C-alpha cells in the first residue's frame, strides 16, 4: 500500500483532458488506484468517477495505490501530476 499527496496547480482543476490522460495511464497498471479529495473518493481508472470528484485548483488530493506494481505506479503517477496538473 502506498500513498502520496499532491496539490493541484492547474487553474482548471482536474479537467477533462488531463483526467483522460490520467485514466489512460492508470489503466496500464495492475494496482488499485484511489484518489481522495474533499471527503470523496474515486477510482482513477474510471473517467466519470474521477471527473465527478470535481477537484478544483489548489485542492490537495491523496493518491492511494495497492498492488504488485504500486511502486512504479506511484512514480509514474506523480510524474504525470507534476507535468499536467
Amino acid at each position, binding site marked *: 500500500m502506498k500513498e502520496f499527496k499532491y*496539490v493541484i*496547480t492547474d487553474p482548471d482543476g482536474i*479537467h477533462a483532458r488531463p483526467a*483522460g490522460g490520467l*485514466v489512460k495511464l492508470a489503466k496500464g497498471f495492475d494496482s488499485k488506484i484511489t484518489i481522495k479529495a474533499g471527503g470523496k473518493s474515486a477510482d482513477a481508472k*474510471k*473517467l466519470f*468517477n474521477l471527473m465527478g470528484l470535481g477537484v478544483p485548483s489548489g485542492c490537495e488530493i491523496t493518491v492511494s495505490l495497492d498492488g504488485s506494481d504500486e511502486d512504479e505506479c506511484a512514480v509514474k503517477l506523480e510524474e504525470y501530476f*507534476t507535468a499536467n496538473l
Partner: protein
Amino acid sequence: MNILKGNAASAGVAIGPVYLYQSGRGEIPHIHIEDVRAEINRFEKAVKEALSQLDLLYKEALSKIGEKEAEIFNIHAMMLEDEDYIDSIVKIIEEQHANAEHAVDVTATGFMQMLMETDNPYMQGRAADIRDISDRLIENLSGVQGRKIVLQQPCILIAEDLTPSQTLQLDKEKILAFVTQGGSFNSHTAILAKTMGIPAVVGVSGLLCPEYFNTNAIVDGDKGILYISPDDETVSIYTEKLNAINENNLALKRMIGKETITPTGKKIRLYANAGGVSDIETALRNDAEGIGLFRSEFIYIERNHFPTEDEQLEIYRLAAEKMAGKTTIIRTLDIGADKQVSYFPLAHEENPALGLRGIRLCLCNHNIFKTQLRAIIRASAFGKIAIMFPMIISVSEIKKIKTIISEVKRELAADRHKFDNDMEIGVMIETPAAALISDELASEVDFFSIGTNDLTQYTLAIDRQNAQLNRFYDSHHRAILDLIGLVVKNAHDKGIWVGVCGELAADIELTDRFIAMGIDELSVAPNKLLELRKTIRCSLVQ
C-alpha cells in the same frame, strides 16, 4: 422588438439575421427487447462506429483548427470507453429488457446530472459532452443523420446549445455570434466564441421561438442581451458601436510591421511582458520587438520540486529560439512569503512585501540561485538573452551577483558549455532606494527596468489590493513620476538604457511623458502592444 437577457459569455457586437437551430432528437423510442444478447451486440457495434467517427473528427479538427480544439474528440472517445458508462447502458438493456437507445438516453441523463451536481463550473460545462456522445450513439443505433447545420449567409446562430461536433462542422465565416438557451460561461460554445473573437450570450430563456427564424437581431456580448427585430434607434446605436469596434481593430492590425517611432523621429523599443511560453507566441503575433520581462516564477510554481538546471534550460532555450534573434530579458526568481511554492516553505512574515523576497531570497539560497543562473546563461547560446534581478536596493547586492555570475561562467566554460559572454545584465528599479541611488547603480549594470507596480506601492506606502485605500491612491502621483525621471537621467548620464515594465508602461496617458523623458523601452502585456504603437506613432512630443 423583443429584448432577451442572458449571461455575457464573449464580448463584442453583432448585427444580422437569426438562424434558429432546433435539434431533431425528438422522442427516444422505448421498446421491450427479447433478445438481450443481440441488443448488446448492436450497442457495441454503435460504440465502435462512434469511436471511428470521433477519430475522423479529431483529425479534421486538428487540421482545421488546432490541437487544443481537437482534443475534445479524444475526450469524447475516452468517455465512450468509460467502464461506468458502458456498464450502466448494458445493465439497463439486460435488466429492463430495454432497447439500446433508451438505455443510452437514461444513462446520459444520469451522468449529466452527476456532473451538474459537482460544484465545479468546468465539470458542469462538460455535461454537454455527455449529451454529444450519447446523441452520437443513439444516431448510430437508429441510423438517423441530420445534425449538420448548413448556413447560407452570415448569421446569428441561436440554439439550445451546440455540441463540439456541430460547431466543428460549421462554416465559421458565416457566424456572427452565438446565442444559446442553455450553456454556461464554460460551455464549449462560449469558449469557441472567445477563440473566434465573436460575441456570445448564454442562458437566455425563451429563446427557441420558431418566429425568430430569419428575423434581424442584435447581440450585445458585453451586456448579455439579444434584441430580436430591434427598432431603428437600437439598430442605429449598435451600428455605431460595431463600426467603432471594427475601425479600431483594423487600425490596430495596420500597426503590425510598422516602426515604433514618433513623427519627430524618436524611437522606442516596444517589448512585451510574458509569464510563460504561450505569452511569447501571443507577443510575437502582436509584433513585439522583444520580451522586456520574462517572469520565471511559473517554472517554479507549476512543479512540486525545484526545477532542475536542464528543465529550466529547456524553457529558456525555447523562449530564445521562438524570439529568433529578438531580445528576451529573463528576470530571476521573484517569490516571497506571499507568493510561495509548496516545496520551498518560507517562514511566515509580518510584512511579506518588505521581507525575504526577490534577489534577497536568491542570495540566501545560493544553490537555487546558481542553478537558475546556469540555465539562463547556457540558454544565451541559443538566442539573444539578457538577465535582470528583482528587488535590488544596493550596489553591494549587484557586486555579489556579478561575482556569482563570473563563477558560473568559469564553471560552464570548463564544462565546455557555450554561452554569450556579452549577455546584458540589468536590474529592476522597484524600490525608492534603488531609484534614489540609481546614479551609483547605473555604473554597475547594462540597463534598468523600472517596475512601476512595486515602485508605486513602496513610494506611496499603499497596498493596491486594499480597496479602502482607493481614494488615496494616485498612479500618476508626482513622487513616482519624479523618481522615474531621476532614474532615466542617471541611467543616460552613465550611458545605459532604461525601460519600464510595470503597468504604467501601457498607460497611454503617460506615453507622451515617457517619450519626453527619453525612456528607451516600454514592455507591456501582449494585447496592449499595438494600441501603444499607435499612440506613439501619433505622439506630438517634440
